[in-house]
């Protein structure tokens, strides 16, 4: 093991002679850290529903409801579940169908819907018709979509 000999004046004005002398009580040692802060996971927007805080506070954060009446809360939850299931089924029925998207900036495009991500943030589509041509595979950002429509009766597979 070679011992590197170097000396320079750090911003604290200390001279570092060699590794053996590093612990000679003149060097300021950096504070140790257990780990780095966790960053975004890239695939979702976070707010983990299994976290202790979410579990404890979530019922009271349903904004539309007045959390005074427990019965009202239950019926509202039921209604939300029905709506959610209906929406998810609508997404399933949309697979491989032609969908017309109306988006911001006066954009209207047609595409064949393939799939959605878990947070309904992106739609995977095929044969996206754009002014520049047909894009075989594309991702559409859901926040950019104002509305979309498709027909259930006819389908182009």
């Amino acid at each position: 093991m070679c011992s590197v000999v170097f000396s320079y004046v750090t911003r604290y004005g200390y001279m570092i002679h060699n590794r053996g002398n590093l612990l000679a009580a003149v060097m300021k040692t950096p504070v140790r850290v257990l780990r780095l802060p966790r960053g975004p996971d890239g695939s979702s927007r976070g707010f983990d529903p299994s976290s202790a805080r979410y579990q404890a506070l979530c019922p009271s954060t349903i904004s539309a409801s007045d959390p005074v009446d427990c019965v009202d809360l239950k019926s509202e939850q039921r209604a939300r579940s029905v709506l959610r299931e209906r929406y998810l089924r609508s997404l399933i029925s949309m697979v491989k169908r032609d969908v017309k998207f109306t988006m911001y900036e006066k954009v209207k495009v047609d595409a064949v819907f393939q799939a959605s991500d878990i947070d309904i943030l992106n739609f995977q589509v095929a044969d996206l018709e754009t002014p520049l041509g047909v894009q075989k595979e594309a991702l559409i950002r859901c926040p950019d979509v104002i509305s979309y429509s498709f027909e259930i009766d006819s389908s182009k597979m």
Partner: protein
Amino acid sequence: MAMRQTPLTCSGHTRPVVDLAFSGITPYGYFLISACKDGKPMLRQGDTGDWIGTFLGHKGAVWGATLNKEATKAATAAADFTAKVWDAVTGDEILSLAHKHIVKSVNFTQDSNYLLTGGHDKVLRIYDLGKPEAEPQEISGHTSAIKKALWCNNDKQILSAADDKTVCLWDRSSMEVVKTLPFDTSVSSMEYIPDGEVLVISYGKTVAFYNALSLELIKTVDAPASVYSASLHPEKDFFVVGGDDFKLYKYDYNTKEELESYKGHFGPVHCVRPDGELYASGSEDGTLRLWQTAVGKTYGLWKCVLPEELVSENSDALYSTVPEMKA
């Protein structure tokens, strides 16, 4: 043994971080929200910097962000001409409040029932969050864009800083201006410390402290570079300053002495917030960094190492810290 500060870098934002706010202490710890020009404000655990979630919905740079005391609600001000109120537990957007121009500042009252907004349309607005469809109360008077608007004096008054180089104190019930502070140059940051009623204002290279009720000057301190943000520690022992020399400074509030300075960011430091055991800074470089108030103390992700643990032939033990502090 003297310890060197190891800042914790919180990555995630892709554009400059322009505003930061802490919540109060809740049973689940405390939280930090960051406003960023990438339009995606983030919520983090206050003591570790761990990402909790991203508030998605804004279509422009987010200029201001705040949390209510209990960290159950968040509010953001953006360049898409809206201020939004969010559920800070689920991340859902609760309200979108349309404005006539870029919104720069948002602030909740102590009871979280009212939201104060201010921005480029020069008008202060008070929204009753219990009646979101109702028109907000409007306070006009500033002659150019409002940079920051804060509730003060138990939510009975409002402080506003604008590009017209004034800071104004308004009475909430009469909606009239009570006092005006003129400046020679635009105010870069303004913060209100309820405990002790202190107002911290930065402009040019100066940090000035005022009595928040009378707007009388208490003292000024000059920094080595232009100050973007200054913030006073809750117990008034020290204040932190971030500026366009990419550095963070920590000053003793009583003696005005510069205690520490840190290079760590790769861009001007846009905002600083102290919160007891740590302070946070956000920079043009897109990162947030958390800094310890008492360097070397075990807190959050920082671990106090006893002298015996350091005496070791194995240099790995010594250099187990984050190399990013150099990068």
